[in-house]
């Protein structure tokens, strides 16, 4: 599906994949740098991390260090601890099931670096990026993990026009931003709403009022998947909802890379949102 959309966004590609959760374990993917041989950086990070958490697995894969650690600590403190080891380290994803891999370049290149096609899981969201305002690098690529909340990831198509205003307010409350990409704000917004105790569906509904501009975004958690479309319907979003699977994409051309023509695609309506909860049903998605 991502390859089907690559023409739309050739700058970078990424996926947030949800695999089986292990009891009392966090999976982490930490960015070591933008390019080059980063194994020494990885070793340094692994040494540092072993002082603050019980590391079960540690591996350098291209720009990332992948860890499995014992989930006995507060995820926020764990992330802070990693950032204190060195400012170059950025936690790209943290969760019980979530793993994000993203990179500058095409989905084909991403798959060559991290063979995600072999990943076994329940659901996922993906993105190909056409940068309009912010830098093209790994950090600015999507999906975004909503720092602080394990397993919460978003992808966004559009432009959040009150981004600067909202960002200022969040920063005044001590929330750190990792990029200048306006899409990052969606995860921050949802993370804050969820931490206030708001159910996901309510938070998504509230975002229709609180976020301005054009947006279709997808949200995934360990067991939920959702989409939201802005009140003016500025951006396209096609949905195939069947008994067996759910597939969502910006364009039908991406769906038709694997979704049979027997399954009808429907354009999501304005101000529309839908949430699915994971059962035994396998799910596939992409924006």
């Amino acid at each position, binding site marked *: 599906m991502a390859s089907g959309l690559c023409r739309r966004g050739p700058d970078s590609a990424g996926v947030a994949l949800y695999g089986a959760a292990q009891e009392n374990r966090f999976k982490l993917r930490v960015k070591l740098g933008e390019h080059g041989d980063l194994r020494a950086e990885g070793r340094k990070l692994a040494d540092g991390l072993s002082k603050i958490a019980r590391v079960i697995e540690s591996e350098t894969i291209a720009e990332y260090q992948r860890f499995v650690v014992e989930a006995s600590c507060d995820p926020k403190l764990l992330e802070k601890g990693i950032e204190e080891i060195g400012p170059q380290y950025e936690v790209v994803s943290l969760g019980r099931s979530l793993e994000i891999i993203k990179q500058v370049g095409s989905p084909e290149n991403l798959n060559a670096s991290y063979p995600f096609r072999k990943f076994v899981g329940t659901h996922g969201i993906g993105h190909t990026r056409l940068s309009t305002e912010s830098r093209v690098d790994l950090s600015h690529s999507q999906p975004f993990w909503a720092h602080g909340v394990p397993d919460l990831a978003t992808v966004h198509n559009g432009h959040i026009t009150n981004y600067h205003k909202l960002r200022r307010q969040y920063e005044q409350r001590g929330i750190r931003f990792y990029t200048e990409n306006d899409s990052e704000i969606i995860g921050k917004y949802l993370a804050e709403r969820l931490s206030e105790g708001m159910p996901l569906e309510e938070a998504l509904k509230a975002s229709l009022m609180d976020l301005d501009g054009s947006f279709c975004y997808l949200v995934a958690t360990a067991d939920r998947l959702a989409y939201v479309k802005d009140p003016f319907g500025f951006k396209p979003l096609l949905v195939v909802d069947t008994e067996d699977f759910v597939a969502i994409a910006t364009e*039908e*051309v991406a*769906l038709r890379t694997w979704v049979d023509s027997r399954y009808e695609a429907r354009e999501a309506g304005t101000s529309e949102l839908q949430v699915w909860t994971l059962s035994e049903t396998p799910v596939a998605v992409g924006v």
Partner: protein
Amino acid sequence: MAVVHCDGKTTKEINQEISELIAKGAKTIEVRSPSARHNLAVGLLQPVELLFKGSVGYYCGGMIDGARITVQGSAGWGLGECMMSGTVVVRGNAGNSAAASIRGGTVVIYGDAGARAGIAMKGGLLIIEGNCGAMAGFMMQKGTMIICGASGHGLADSMYEGTVFLGGEAASLGNDTKVCDPDEEERRFLKDMLSEHGIAAAHSFKKIVAGRRLWNFEKQEFELWKEVL
């Protein structure tokens, strides 16, 4: 019948192949596995018959003048945009802005249409058998829209001229609309048009036209203008 296979071809190659077949005198062309590619059959100026076996992407049949296009699948945004004459028929659903700015011809959608269907129509006929999204017929200037199902918010907002017939309910009407009952001639027209396209029309239709209060600025209607602008 001439056949175009799309697999492994670019949009440009497919459109070129269609043009070459038309130049050679093909009257009917079947296009197989279009796989929702964009910009197919745009700007065709000949009375050719085209059948897409599958979904098409954005702007299919845009700016055509006389071609007859059938899509056995769904269509993306801007279906038949700016067409002059001819027919575009979609068996499935259509994305946003179907039949935007058409000047003539007929667009038929058997499924649902997205937002802004028939926006800025300048003539022609748009028929939607299913439902349509928000802001259908926005700033329409001429032509006719028949919506058999329900409509989203802001139906027929700020129209200059033109007529919208609605079979179902509208989530809300747009600014400056006037709702009335179709007269006998219009009821006959609706019946004829729907039966011509094989659409059962058991229900009655409401007719929506411009209230004409936005045509000229009136100071005493300042509140209405404030709302619109």
